[in-house]
């Protein structure tokens, strides 16, 4: 923990001393992801000040403005994010933008950094450097998991993690959006609105019949759905869904794809998945990660025909 703080201080220091480094976003070394955002204005007017520090300040102001422009309408904005574990770069200068209301599929071979990316977005892991913004201007690197979850980013894990000692209903009840104070929970009363909400979610996730079952006794697919139900209960702006159909039957996979499309009507969703059939069934824009950075992006057909992608998937 202290490491990351030190790291952060060091980064800030570096940002101070070399403003035209990673502080200027899409002009950085990984422009691939930043197509939709224009920033020609910054490049257009070189600024020379008689005083070096004034130059620094000016550059930083411009950089900030550029960022603000770039981020304004995004829901999730990752820029130049890097994270390494013991020298291994799990995420390497990753830049990724999700628009509001978008549903995005992320594919990539094992070790491409998908899970680490999720960890960074949800606050479990702090990046070594780079920016992570939510809803335009919330810097996610400054918040912990609980705060990020409360802001409206929900996450479903690769391995379904539900509260096995609780019933399906209680799992959802604990996840319902609402105050998160401890003493509030102590004096909490179940009310009509809460029951209705739970009812809706149970129906959406096809778990109504199992509402009193302990989560431990659910089948694998049901646990996946329960976890998605818990996500819905949080009513998040953005859902991060990690391999939702791993280990599912074809029928279940179909059903899950339908469920996700349904959800995507009211939420932004990022799905990480291996299963190409499933991704095709989703029918959304696809980003392919490789070795911690974006390899290709576009429709599934475009991505799957990209020679770089073909090389990564087939070439080894």
């Amino acid at each position: 923990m202290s490491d990351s703080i030190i790291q952060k201080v060091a980064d800030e220091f570096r940002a101070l001393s070399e403003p035209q480094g990673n502080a200027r976003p899409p002009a950085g070394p990984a422009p691939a992801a930043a197509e939709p955002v224009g920033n020609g204005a910054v490049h257009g007017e070189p600024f020379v000040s008689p005083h070096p520090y004034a130059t620094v300040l000016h550059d930083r102001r411009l950089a900030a403005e550029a960022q603000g422009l770039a981020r304004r309408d995004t829901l999730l904005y990752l820029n130049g994010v890097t994270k390494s574990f013991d020298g291994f770069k799990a995420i390497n200068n990753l830049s990724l933008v999700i628009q509001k209301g978008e549903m995005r599929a992320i594919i990539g071979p094992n070790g491409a950094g998908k899970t680490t990316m999720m960890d960074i977005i949800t606050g479990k892991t702090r990046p070594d450097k780079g920016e992570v913004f939510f809803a335009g201007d919330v810097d996610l690197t400054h918040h912990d998991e609980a705060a990020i979850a409360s802001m409206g980013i929900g996450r479903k894990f690769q391995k379904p993690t539900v509260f096995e000692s609780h019933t399906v209903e209680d799992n959802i009840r604990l996840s319902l959006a609402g105050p998160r104070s401890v003493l509030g929970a102590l004096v909490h009363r179940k009310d009509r609105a809460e029951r209705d909400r739970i009812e809706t979610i149970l129906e959406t996730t096809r778990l109504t019949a199992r509402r009193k079952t302990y989560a431990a006794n659910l089948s694998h697919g049901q646990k996946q759905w329960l976890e998605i139900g818990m996500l819905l209960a949080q009513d998040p702006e953005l859902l991060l869904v990690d391999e939702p159909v791993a280990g599912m039957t074809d029928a279940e996979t179909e059903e899950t794809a339908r469920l996700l499309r349904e959800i995507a009507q009211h939420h932004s969703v990022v799905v990480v998945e291996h299963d190409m059939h499933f991704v095709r069934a989703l029918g959304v824009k696809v980003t392919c990660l490789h070795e911690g950075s974006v390899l290709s992006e576009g429709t599934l057909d475009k991505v799957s025909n990209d020679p770089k992608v073909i090389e990564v998937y087939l070439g080894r």
Partner: protein
Amino acid sequence: MNRSIRWLLAGLAFVLFVAPAVAQQAADPAAIVQKFGGKQSYDDTEAVISELARTGDANVARALRALRDGDLYWRESDEAVFIGKRKGDDYEIFDPMTGEAAGTVPRGEMQKVRVKNSIRNAVTTALGSLTLGADSAAQRMRAAETLFSEADPEMIEPLDAAIASEEDAGVKARMEEARASAVLVSDRPAEEKAAAAKILANRADRESLTMLTRFAGATDDPVAKQAAEAAIVAIQNNIAFWNQMQNVWYGLSLGSVLLLAAIGLAITFGVMGVINMAHGEMVMIGAYTTYVVQEFIRTNAPGLFEYSLFIALPLAFLVAGAVGLVMERGLIRFLYGRPLETLLATFGVSLILQQAVRTIFGPSNREVGNPDFMSGAFDLGLMSVNWNRLWIIVFALVVFAALLAVLNKTPLGLQMRAVTQNRKMAAAMGIRTPWVDAMTFALGSGIAGIAGVALSQIDNVSPNLGQGYIIDSFMVVVFGGVGNLWGTLVGAMTLGIVNKFLEPFAGAVLGKIVVLVLIILFIQKRPRGLFAQKGRFVEA
């Protein structure tokens, strides 16, 4: 004290100047030795000693040494004095002057010549005066040392004479220091005292500091005073330096004890995740094995006593390892994946083992002796280094290195690491995981047993032995970082040194409390210990 100085003086003068000439005319020493016989008061004994010292006959040294060591006896029937050596229920007796054997006598017929500390001191002084002129440089050295601490102005002249005829440089230096200490308290001129202060400043130990301080307070002469004060500052700096060194040394030594106690736990707890509350009892079993080995050697092969620890080491490893093996097979293996439950079960085992040892060996302390190479100390500057502490440090490091080698270089170590990292995968690769578990636990327990051999040299061997180390061991492993042997090493040494640097200021109790609080605070900063396992699979 004063009286003994006077004998010493007398003896010294005698030996140096008169003895060679008049020795033949003096009273027969053998007859004087016989005066030790019969019931007598300590004062009587002391008088006989001084009488013997006055003979100046080096032959009486045998009887005096026997007296000091409590080996001098007199026969009840005729009050004749002999040197006695116990042999079963009898004494073998020897002539006090010649050392010739004089047969065996039942114990009941002999009475010991009673001694106490003041008698032993008198004997030492007498022996000193008798042997100052002796050929042995070591004995002359000892005499000079004695004179140094006595610091008697009347000794200046005899010392001058001795210095003049001394050939051994080392002894000569000691004699000069002795002379300087005497000069300081004499009424010699100030310049001479200033010179003496310089000599003492070069000696630079606590005794010379005391003398100089006393002198600086007493003298009126500005020159001598200044010299003394300069010397005092120099000595104080020297002492302060060596005090720090001493603290480091003590810290390392305490650290090595902690390391020994914790290193087995670093395996059973650190590597296997078993919260082994019976770890201390494994250490205890090792210590008791040492006891049994020594008892066996004492009765059957006394000559092997010096090697008893080396014999005990493998046995302790095997015995404690076997107990560990039984524990693992019978208990722990049912509890993998439930670390907190191993705490309860092993706590139960620790109670049972403690009571078992209490039942078998009795509740009181057992005697484990130190072989000669583990006894005594030597001086390094102003710091005294105990042989047993030194060997324990060396031993702890050797055990650490060996364990590291086992883990990193042997097939067993490879399999162990494989099993702890991914049990299922290891099993799929054909590793017999139950066997590896059993061996790992036995190894950890065996190492604890080995630690017990070393700890038996400095601590009680009692059923409570393990209890004293268990908490500290867990602190060390957790502080260092679970699952990392290097963490255990650094953790143990750090805690040892911090503790020893705190002790002089805070006292033993507060020092320990502070260390505990520091550990608690440290864990806040690094919740996984000093050498935390890193990587993205470690759950935050």
